[in-house]
């Protein structure tokens, strides 16, 4: 069924969403936008935090008292279109990665430095090419700065709380240690931002997100941001997750496993990152010595008439080694390390999503408990609890789909990455032989 929709409109292609009117694949995202995700507002804590000076004050509230339905009173479906479609997506995952007809291409390039009186910053050109109907033009080109990317990510996290949002490159750079405007830094960041947008564009759900659309197409993103903020302030009193105070009765085994996996995974990545950095360091030091080593042979050849040819030969070979080694460590720094970083950040955002999932489940369980206590008075199970249950379920489904997707991406990425590393090393040796 999913393949029938061409894999391009997963939200509509699902079609199985109980309360959603059947829509054409192309209009799928629209229905998504019209009907916010059941959890859409519940994660507004990040955004809310900006508006509320001390969000902590809101936290100590009893769970049962809270109104857990959506703040703006949107009717909640038993199943969200997004989640059912992502279930479908799981089935066509392999297709997704290899054979999917991509219809949204985003690239980030051409960084430019802007110097104002107030601040200096870099903007990147974000170019979009698409055949999707909801875009008015086939091509867009906008300039965005890091802040905008950050905004986008927050919005995505907010509106798609059940999905795994790709990570952004680190925001904070210790001043003085790294030059924020150096060519290397900007280039590394550009690559990471490019990757970030590409991952969203390839995602069956996230790519239809309204904010993403705006990010890619809006001429005046600033105005839109402001508008969004005004809207947010209205929802300032939104639901807060209760953390810590409640212990999950039973976390599903698979999520527990994912949690454990992530812990180990990020640990191992950290180690690999350290090893790679150490290798680069060793290589750089090796390079320094080699640079001294070569000329010694040249000096010697000046001393020997008969031997000058082989000695010069050795010297030239060492020179080649230097060049090849330099390229190798440059490639490692530019290509290998950033991917490791991205995945380390990825596993962080994954842990966050997992935490959110646990919270949703916790809410559900707390509600259920409360209901059980009150059951004597009121026999019928409130719909509220059912809603909660649904939310947990759809969260689980979304998350699982994203996890699988991520696992697959990760496999591909690392395969490529490590093969690349092997290739680079092979090339290095080949160059050295020549």
């Amino acid at each position: 069924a999913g393949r029938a929709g061409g894999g391009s409109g997963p939200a509509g292609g699902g079609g199985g969403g109980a309360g959603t009117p059947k829509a054409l694949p192309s209009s799928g995202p629209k229905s998504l936008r019209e009907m916010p995700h059941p959890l859409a507002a519940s994660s507004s804590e990040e955004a809310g935090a900006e508006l509320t000076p001390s969000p902590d004050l809101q936290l100590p509230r009893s769970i049962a008292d809270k109104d857990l339905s959506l703040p703006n009173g949107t009717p909640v479906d038993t199943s969200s279109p997004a989640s059912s479609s992502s279930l479908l997506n799981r089935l066509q995952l392999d297709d997704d990665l290899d054979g999917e007809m991509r219809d949204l291409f985003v690239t980030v390039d051409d960084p430019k430095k802007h110097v104002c009186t107030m601040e200096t910053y870099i903007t990147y050109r974000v170019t979009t090419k698409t055949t999707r109907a909801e875009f008015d033009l086939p091509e867009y080109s906008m300039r965005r700065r890091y802040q905008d990317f950050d905004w986008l990510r927050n919005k995505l996290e907010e509106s798609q709380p059940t999905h795994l949002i790709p990570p952004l490159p680190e925001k904070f750079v210790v001043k003085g240690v790294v030059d924020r405007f150096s060519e290397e830094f900007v280039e590394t960041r550009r690559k990471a931002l490019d990757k970030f947008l590409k991952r969203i564009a390839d995602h069956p759900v996230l790519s239809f997100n309204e904010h993403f659309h705006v990010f890619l197409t809006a001429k005046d993103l600033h105005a839109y941001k402001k508008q969004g903020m005004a809207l947010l302030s209205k929802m300032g009193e939104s639901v807060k997750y209760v953390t810590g105070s409640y212990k999950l009765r039973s976390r599903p085994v698979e999520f527990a496993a994912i949690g454990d996996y992530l812990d180990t995974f990020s640990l191992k990545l950290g180690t690999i990152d350290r090893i790679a950095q150490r290798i680069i360091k060793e290589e750089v030091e090796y390079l320094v010595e080699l640079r001294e080593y070569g000329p010694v042979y040249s000096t010697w050849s000046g001393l020997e008439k008969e031997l000058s040819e082989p000695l010069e030969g050795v010297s030239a070979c060492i020179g080649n080694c230097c060049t090849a080694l330099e390229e190798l460590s440059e490639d490692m720094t530019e290509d290998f390390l950033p991917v490791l970083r991205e995945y380390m950040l990825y596993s962080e955002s994954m842990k966050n999503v997992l935490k959110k999932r646990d919270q949703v489940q916790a809410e559900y369980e707390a509600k259920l408990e409360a209901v059980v206590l009150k059951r004597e008075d009121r026999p019928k199970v409130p719909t509220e609890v059912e809603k909660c249950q649904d939310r947990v379920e759809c969260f689980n489904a979304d998350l699982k789909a994203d996890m699988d997707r991520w696992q697959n991406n990760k496999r591909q990425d690392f395969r490529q990455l490590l093969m690349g590393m092997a290739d680079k090393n092979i090339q290095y040796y080949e160059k050295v032989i020549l």
Partner: protein
Amino acid sequence: VSLAIPEIESVLDPESRRPLWHTAYLPPKFITIGTWGELTYIVGTNEEYCLLKKIEISVAEAEKRTGRNAMNMQETYTAYLVETRAVESQAEGQCSPPDSLWRRYSEFELLRNYLLVNYPHVIVPPLPEKRAEFVWHKLAADNMDPDFVERRRIGLENFLLRVASHPILCQEKIFNAFLTKEGGWKETVNETGFQLKADSRLKALNATFRVKNPDRRFTELKHYSDELQSVISHLLRVRARVADRLYGVYKVHGNYGRVFSEWSAIEKEMGDGLQSAGHHMDVYAASIDDILEEEEHYADQLKEYLFYAEALRAVCRKHELLQYELEMAAQDLTSKKQQCEELATGTVRTFSLKGMTSKLFGQETPEQREAKIKVLEEQIRDGEEQLKAKNLESRDFMKSAWTDIERFKEQKNHDLKEALISYAVMQISMCKKGIQVWTNAKECFSKM
């Protein structure tokens, strides 16, 4: 190791996988000069007189021993088994067991000192280093370390082969005795009283500053050996650091092996690929040990020439000393002649103590003057003869030293060329190994 073959067929000995290049380099034809001092040499080609044509020499093994030294103190030392075997008997089909005897490093040193004193015009092959130098940190610098002992064993064998293939040194009886007479050899050497002939370093140093007309060729040679020494020692120092770094690069890759294997435990599809890739990383990290061990032989080859530079300098020093003596004799003669003339003519050309005393104490009687002139004339005759002898000695020295220097140059160019080639071969094989490992690893990654 068969040492009778002067041809170098392969860079590495297939059995011991050790560089073979240093086994007996023999220049195609070499004619020795006639006389040097009291010693007379047979003029001919090394093809007739090379010792290696008659016997095979090897230092077969090393053994740690404990004994008592002259002070009756317990000491530990290493003894080396020197084996010799007649080549002719082998050709006749009856493989006679090799004659063998044990020698200590100090005995090798004694032999070399003896040669150094008795053959000042010869660039005496150097001994391997007494203590490990220019080592990278992973290599033990301990004198008793098995690796060091093994490398020294090779070095000592090389030394014996060098002496044996030298057209002049190979005819030395003491050397022959070193190879064949275990007991009493030391005493025999000491009885020759060679140490009396040894010129003190101070004397040589003195000569360096006083020689008025140094020979241009020797000055250049001295300059060359200084530069050679500095460039090789610089090279060895940097090489040790390069080896250190290379070791680091490889060994850090070994950590990948561990992490990949640990990581593979939590992965499903990627697990197997990671696991075996990790194994390849282990192999990669381990491969550096052999590579650097092989490189150590290259370093030893260079080291030999580092020490050769010192031997070259010794010849130069000896020449300076001779030149100095010659100049002194000439100077002496001139002053004697001048004195004689002064006495004969009664004029004092230069202000001298003698002139002062004669003025103060009055003129000598003619008889006294006659007697003095006679003595001086006698001295002048002696001096002239001495000068003649010195001149002859110096000429002979120059001639024979230069012959040996030419021989050395040829040997050096040949050896170093071989060493550089074997070094290049080593590097290429290292790269090939690297490619192999990474190709294997890539295959594993591609299966993920």
